[in-house]
């Protein structure tokens, strides 16, 4: 205990400025205290084995309205409308929403979307070429592909992409004030209220129309819940994958021998995607939870009401699980990575994200065999937000 009085508690988040995550040095134990920008303290867990236990444990809650929940950003005074945003719910409520969406995102269903994904990727590649070299890969390729795909899936008009991309960015930026966050959540919700009303009058062949007809009409879900759920899917569905496409391209171009290996053996693409997910772990800030009762993780006591953070990027560099974890090796078969989280909240969109990444990288490296960075890699600017990414990536071909 006296330790905490003498050892300064590190400030968290650590900040990120490159493909390599910044990790704490907590020694063999891999657990320590950190201080959040809100003044709160939390336990930070970094070992793969500990994260498995923590994220599967019913002793921890994802509900950030609970006392003691570790807040990395100050919350708006008036808690924003959260109905339907099941990423922040616990069972049984979480289960109710997750089950309504599981069939939509299951592997079999995503497989039927692959022709559409490929067509979208080829279209974006065409627009990148048309922009003329050098061009920003983020603007012409990495952002539009997942945005168009999630719009198609949900039934959101892609023509509105500037509106929701700009709001998503504010929502996910560390620098946004509580008021700004509150405003963009309200704007996104209003946008979806109007869209859902329109879908209920004129249903299309899309997820929002289906959920409105099969769940709202039947009373299983309220319209407000459908609004919140749609905001979650819209934001989670494009920012994450877009950042992965941008960063993955950068990493592949910085590892020419590995890229050559993939070109020689295209069947390595699935392992490549897994290794990129592990190596980059774009949910850099880790996953926040609060203990709902006195409990332990890996033998460490966590008291009821104490906040914890599971640092996914550290678990994905755990030497007990990944040999030479700092090395990018596309053939390592990194199946145990935690880039999509672990436990009942593990990313529901992972089959979609994997299909998008696989097809985008395949077509990009096939279609532009001379692809190269058009700038000095040391000048690439990163976006350190809730989801980590590159701001722009000037490429030539």
């Amino acid at each position: 205990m006296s330790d905490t009085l003498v050892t300064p508690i590190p400030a968290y988040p650590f900040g990120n400025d490159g493909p390599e995550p910044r990790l704490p040095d907590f020694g063999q134990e891999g657990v320590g205290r950190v201080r959040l920008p809100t003044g709160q303290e939390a336990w930070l867990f970094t070992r793969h084995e500990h994260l498995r236990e923590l994220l599967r444990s019913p002793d921890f809650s994802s509900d950030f309205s609970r006392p003691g929940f570790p807040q990395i950003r100050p919350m708006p005074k008036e808690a924003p409308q959260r109905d339907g945003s099941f990423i922040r719910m616990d069972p049984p409520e979480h289960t109710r929403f997750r089950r309504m969406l599981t069939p939509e995102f299951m592997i079999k269903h995503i497989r039927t979307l692959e022709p559409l994904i490929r067509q979208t990727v080829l279209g974006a590649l065409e627009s990148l070429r048309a922009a003329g070299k050098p061009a920003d890969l983020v603007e012409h390729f990495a952002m539009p592909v997942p945005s168009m795909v999630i719009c198609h899936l949900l039934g959101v008009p892609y023509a509105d992409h500037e509106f929701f991309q700009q709001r998503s960015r504010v929502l996910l930026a560390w620098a946004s004030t509580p008021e700004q966050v509150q405003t963009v959540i309200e704007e996104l919700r209003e946008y979806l209220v109007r869209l859902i009303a329109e879908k209920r009058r004129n249903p299309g062949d899309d997820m929002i129309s289906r959920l409105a007809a099969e769940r709202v009409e039947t009373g299983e879900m309220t319209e407000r819940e459908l609004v919140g759920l749609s905001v979650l899917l819209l934001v989670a569905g494009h920012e994450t994958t877009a950042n992965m496409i941008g960063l993955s391209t950068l990493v592949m171009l910085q590892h020419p021998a590995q890229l050559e290996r993939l070109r020689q053996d295209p069947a390595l693409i699935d392992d490549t995607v897994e290794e990129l997910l592990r190596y980059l772990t774009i949910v850099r800030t880790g996953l926040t939870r609060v203990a709902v009762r006195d409990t332990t993780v890996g033998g460490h006591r966590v008291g009821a009401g104490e906040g914890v953070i599971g640092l996914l990027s550290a678990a994905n560099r755990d030497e007990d699980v990944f040999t030479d974890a700092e090395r990018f090796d596309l053939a390592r078969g990194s199946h145990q990575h935690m880039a999509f989280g672990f436990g009942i909240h593990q990313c529901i969109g992972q089959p979609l994200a994997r299909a998008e990444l696989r097809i985008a990288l395949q077509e990009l490296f096939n279609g532009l065999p001379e692809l190269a960075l058009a700038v000095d890699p040391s000048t690439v600017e990163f976006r350190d937000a809730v989801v980590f990414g590159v701001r722009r990536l000037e490429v030539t071909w």
Partner: protein
Amino acid sequence: MSGALRVAVDREACCGSGNCVRTAPEVFDQDDADGLVLLRRSEPAPGDWDAVRQAAYNCPAGAIAVAGP
């Protein structure tokens, strides 16, 4: 010989991640109606044992139990 490998799944616990289907498609499937896990074989072929053990380890919800060698 210590007998066959046996698998059981808990559909109540399953969160429909689809990880097991990716890892061992011969053994696991997702129900068309609800997306939750379905067992295709409770006694998988020895060639699938490693994949089944890996699927159990990687199941985010801890919904797969493996017994045997």
